[in-house]
């Protein structure tokens, strides 16, 4: 019951839609530095964990401890957002779902999709259920990463696992003619979904840039916890 409530109240259900998270290949969460890409990616991952799915979170910025901390914080924010929850129950659920998350921290220079491939292969070898999504946080889209993205695309096809990536844009850059930041424009064929997070006064506006019918839908988020503002 608590799982269901948390999924319904997740900012992801109102923006991307829970059913859309794993329905396809690549998704991007775009924003300037410090707006909340990682926080939003964590909320995406949490909905999967709450649905008893496995998640692999690869970070090129954060250390392993910090990744774990971000998940704990994201979960606590979600719990606090839905109001009173029996703390024991919340703790038990956390203990239950956290084991389905694996955080891997790579140095940017040594990041190699081969390591992810080895890891995914080991699931197949041991006849285990694969992660439903892989989050990759910290890839630098200002450089040419087409080779990495091609390799990730191959993994997507081989293992049928969805990817969600963070994408950093910059204040001074103008949007391209179809309204995409330049970083997305370059690889727009690959990404089926994209959410742009932008600060509007003291809130964050989540705009769906790319996702079929949902395109251009908007929602307001609280920057302190990345939860929906409209609810309260």
């Amino acid at each position, binding site marked *: 019951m608590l799982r269901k409530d948390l999924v319904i109240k997740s900012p992801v259900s109102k923006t991307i839609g829970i059913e859309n998270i794993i329905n396809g290949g690549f998704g991007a969460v775009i924003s300037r530095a410090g707006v909340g890409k990682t926080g939003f990616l964590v909320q995406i991952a949490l909905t999967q964990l709450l649905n008893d799915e496995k998640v692999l979170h690869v970070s090129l910025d954060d*250390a*392993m*401890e910090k*990744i*774990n901390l971000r998940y704990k914080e994201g979960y606590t924010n979600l719990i606090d957002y839905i109001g009173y929850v029996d703390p024991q129950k919340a703790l038990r659920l956390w203990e239950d779902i956290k*084991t389905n998350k*694996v*955080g*891997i*921290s*790579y*140095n940017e220079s*040594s990041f190699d999709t*081969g*390591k*992810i*491939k*080895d*890891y995914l*292969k*080991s*699931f197949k*070898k*041991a006849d*285990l259920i694969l992660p439903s999504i892989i989050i990759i946080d910290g890839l630098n889209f200002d450089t040419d990463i087409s080779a990495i993205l091609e390799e990730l695309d191959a993994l997507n096809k081989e293992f049928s696992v969805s990817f969600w990536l963070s994408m950093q844009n910059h204040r001074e850059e103008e949007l391209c003619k179809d309204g995409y930041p330049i970083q997305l424009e370059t690889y727009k064929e690959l990404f089926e979904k994209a959410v742009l997070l932008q600060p509007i006064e003291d809130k964050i506006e989540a705009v769906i840039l790319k996702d079929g019918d949902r395109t251009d839908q908007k929602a307001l988020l609280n920057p302190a916890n990345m939860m929906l503002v409209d609810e309260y």
Partner: protein
Amino acid sequence: MIRDLEKVRNIGISAHIDSGKTTLTERILFYTDRIHQINEVRGKDGTGAVMDSMELEKERGITIASAATYCEWDKHNINIIDTPGHVDFTVEVERSLRVLDGVVLILCSVSGVQSQSITVDQQMKRYQVPCIAFVNKCDRSGANPVKVSGQLRDKLGHNSVMMQLPIGLEDKHEGVIDLVAMKAYFFEGDNGENMVTKEIPEEYMDDALAAREEMLDAVSLFSEELTDYILEEKDIPEEVIMDAIRTGTIAREMTPVFLGSAYKNKAVQPLLNAVISYLPSPLDIENEAIDLDNNEEAVILESEFDKPTVALAFKLEDGQYGQLTYIRVYQGCINKGDTLINSRDGKKFKAGRLIRMHSSQMEDVEAIPAGHIGAMFGVDCASGDTFVSSKINYSMLAMHIMEPVISLSIKPKDNKAQINMSKALNRFTKEDPTFKTYVDHETGDTIIQGMGELHLEVYVERMKREYAAEVETGQPRVAYRETITRKALFNYTHKKQTGGAGQFGRVAGFLEPCDEEFEFVNKITGGRIPTQYIPACNQGFEACMDKGPKLEFPVTGIKVTLEDGAYHAVDSSEMAFKAAARGAFLEAYNKAKPVIKEPIMKVVIETPNEFQGACMGLINQRRGIIQGSQEEGVMSVIESQVPLSDMFGFSTVLRSGTQGKAQFTMEFSSYKQVPQSVAEDIAKKKLEEKKENK
């Protein structure tokens, strides 16, 4: 032995495996003139380090038993305990910390804070032991002591403060800059024995000034005098800075960080100076005992020689002259010929030969005064016993001892081995509280239990080498447990009226899961069960915990609440209520959804980056849960939780999967319920075993 306790230091050297603890100790002994030649841990000379006196230690290059030794430096007596780094021997570390006043925590300048450093740190916290850190191996490729100091802060929560800066790193490591004295130290001579003090090289001056300012800023928190000097921008006397560092260190509010390379003989002498300057003397530490004659009230022990004696036996060794008992004297003084009492069993004994140890060599002494570590011969006692003089009845608080998680059946190969094996087991169980043994009555096998495969392997090997007891070992077994998962009612009547005296007792109530091992709550009112039979009910239930009805594993986590019952004026007895409780337990147990729990181990693998995926795969194949992985330079650290039953033989698999380049540590984490499919396998195996035994 020095009687001025200001000049005594009881220190331990703790760290992750292969961080260079024994190498550092060896250098310390060399510089303090205790030994006259340096031998390497796995040296080509085949001698092995002095501190690794056990044959097996020298061969494997690991320290198994803590060897105690002492040395003198700058007119101070330093008692050193060299502790094992491998987690399977963690009880040795626990014991050492219990009797030490301070610790030198060694960290590798390349690997930084590793899993065992975290365990050792937790133990230091438990016993409130102040520490200084030594970042070793600065000569290694990839050395980064500043990063390690940061890890000490981030991963272990220490207020780490750099006391030195390196002069060159990796193969250019030449010496260190002392930020307190603002001098540079270089180490000359064949074994770095000549410490040469020079001015700080110009190219390092800016960094040194910045680092000193940072250091002063951190240290000034512990001294108003120092703060005044800083605010008034006066020249600060070294003593003022050192006093502040000492205050912060002893209060466990800061950890001064030193660096060097023990193997390359760099900066060991400044570390010794730091031990004297910053780690506490026995007078700085408050030690407590409990007064067994006064409701176990806590008593503060005083390091005064004329007070009644209190000493703790923290380690036993069986040598060629009989049992050697290592002791730390906390109060009073043990003189040769003194009569002492073992407060555990009240037995009197006479202190015979007293010695102090220098690794495996010994020096006879006339007395061991308070504050010192020494050893005595010919005392029949167990590790952890307290010795007191006849005037008092104190006991030092018990040490934290973990329950064994793995067992192995052993069978002597012949009659002679049988006798020797008994002798060996008798000694080992006395020496090591985490090593246990018993005879399985069903199979007749002798079972040994311990903290890990290596732990048991070492004891089997020692039986062979030291006692000539050749034994055959069975498959290692996991210490499974049973528990219940929901509440279940019982209402059981034990009635027997066939010949002789009758038996009658009825008990009613419920079983429910709880966090304690076993809890019994009596809610009987109105004398439905007379008070004198309640303890029998308790005993009856508790007796059922030894062997669970499901698969005969020990049962844990059960709370029994007794609410109702009945008795018979003539036929009720303690025996009848015990039997009723047993019946009730069996009745409710199956209704309470019993499950099997297994020990889950925290497994940390350190591997070169290229094998990270492969290592994670190995964990996946073992029902393991990967908690995360972190790249640190060329190495990756993978943290995971894996059931112990799937870890047997892992070292071989890991070696072959990583060309021998990865290593792992494993320690007990918690008990968790086994998945249904595994529970079925366990049940099947258990059934087969039973059939075989029949």
